[in-house]
């Protein structure tokens, strides 16, 4: 084998793309030719450096959530709550149904049991929709306490907006969302790439319920109530960190 042939085949050789007999001929030449062997060595070390050094970014959880959300809408899994292409219609219908059921005061306990899962589902569906591009916040936090005042006059409850940046839960902002047929205040935090939505609205029930974590379609949903305020949190963050977040949020 001549050097020129060897050089032509060197790329295929380091990539393991030669036939066994061709590779054999290459090995023989490289064993006897210092110049080609040096070139071979260089290509191998270049390959090694690339494999170790090239950025290997992983798909962010926010992207995975966006894709899962889009896929679940294409199956009609969430079709009872959201209709693909017209996400608001189904939601408003669901809200209207709850409003009708709420008309009978004597069914308080049953209604409570029946509406819980429906609310959890709507909370999740609002969470998923918020992950679509441009839907996360109506007001982005500018680090000067602008989020809490933004809710004034927009909802009938001023939500808690504690700054938890130092605990690793930066405030992303706030928005209005729709859950259970009403406009609710939604405060948005971020943990690494994970979005945490906190929904809250006033309730007549003044008894406090401690937080309960449940899993809805693979997402964590935490629900509790504090002195006349009902709160729901949804995220794809792991349960341990999400519960840590809830503890910090409630401490304020």
């Amino acid at each position, binding site marked *: 084998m001549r050097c020129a042939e060897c050089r032509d085949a060197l790329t295929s050789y380091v990539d393991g793309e030669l036939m066994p007999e061709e590779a054999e001929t290459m090995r023989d030449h490289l064993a006897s030719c210092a110049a080609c062997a040096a070139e071979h060595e260089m290509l191998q070390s*270049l390959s090694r450096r690339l494999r170790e050094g090239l*950025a290997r970014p992983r798909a962010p959880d926010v992207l995975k959530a966006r894709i899962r959300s889009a896929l679940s809408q294409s199956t009609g899994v969430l079709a009872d709550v959201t209709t693909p292409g017209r996400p608001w219609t189904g939601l408003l219908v669901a809200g209207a149904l709850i409003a009708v059921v709420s008309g009978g005061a004597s069914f308080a306990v049953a209604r409570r049991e029946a509406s819980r899962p429906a609310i959890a589902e709507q909370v999740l569906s609002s969470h998923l929709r918020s992950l679509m591009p441009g839907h996360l916040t109506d007001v982005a936090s500018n680090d000067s306490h602008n989020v809490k005042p933004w809710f004034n006059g927009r909802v009938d409850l001023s939500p808690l907006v504690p700054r938890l940046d130092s605990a690793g839960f930066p405030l992303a902002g706030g928005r209005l969302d729709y859950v259970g047929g009403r406009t609710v205040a939604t405060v948005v935090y971020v943990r690494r790439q994970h979005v945490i939505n906190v929904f809250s609205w006033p309730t007549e029930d003044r008894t406090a319920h401690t937080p309960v974590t449940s899993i809805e379609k693979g997402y964590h949903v935490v629900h509790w109530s504090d002195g006349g305020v009902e709160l729901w949190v949804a995220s794809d963050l792991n349960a341990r960190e999400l519960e840590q977040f809830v503890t910090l949020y409630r401490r304020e």
Partner: protein
Amino acid sequence: MAHREVESFERLVLPHLDDAYALACHLLRDEHDAQDVVQEAVLRALRYFDGFRDGDARAWLLAIVRNCCYTWQRRYRTDGLSVSYADAETSSQLRGTDTDAGAIRSSDSAVIDRAVASLPPEFREVIVLRELQELSYREISQITGVPMGTVMSRLARARKRLASSLGLLIEEAS
């Protein structure tokens, strides 16, 4: 679309999201663009899932991601495909914020990313597909739509350029 069909799509395609995202990041040099393009590519893949029955789901998805990247650049970037995005800022953006591995990786990574980013796209894509995703010439040929011989010659030329920019080039005695 039937629930079972979407389930089998999820099972075959979603495990390759990281690879899809890495390819899009290297081709577009922008995390946010890469996220939007990967989402668009996955939904497009779902639409064409009928046409995919067996074979390599990863190569199939990467081919769609690649096409979406170039369509995206034609649509949104006036500077076109021949411009590379090699400045330090985009290179550090590519690091991401959630990768623990990112913090560990040596400073050599920044040098290498810059060198790869400054390659023309047709060279950059073969390097990423070969060195990062360890695909065969046949798979790279399927993804890029060029013959295997062209894959090989592009890899050879891309490596020559990288060896030069990384200071590995051997002085020929002749």
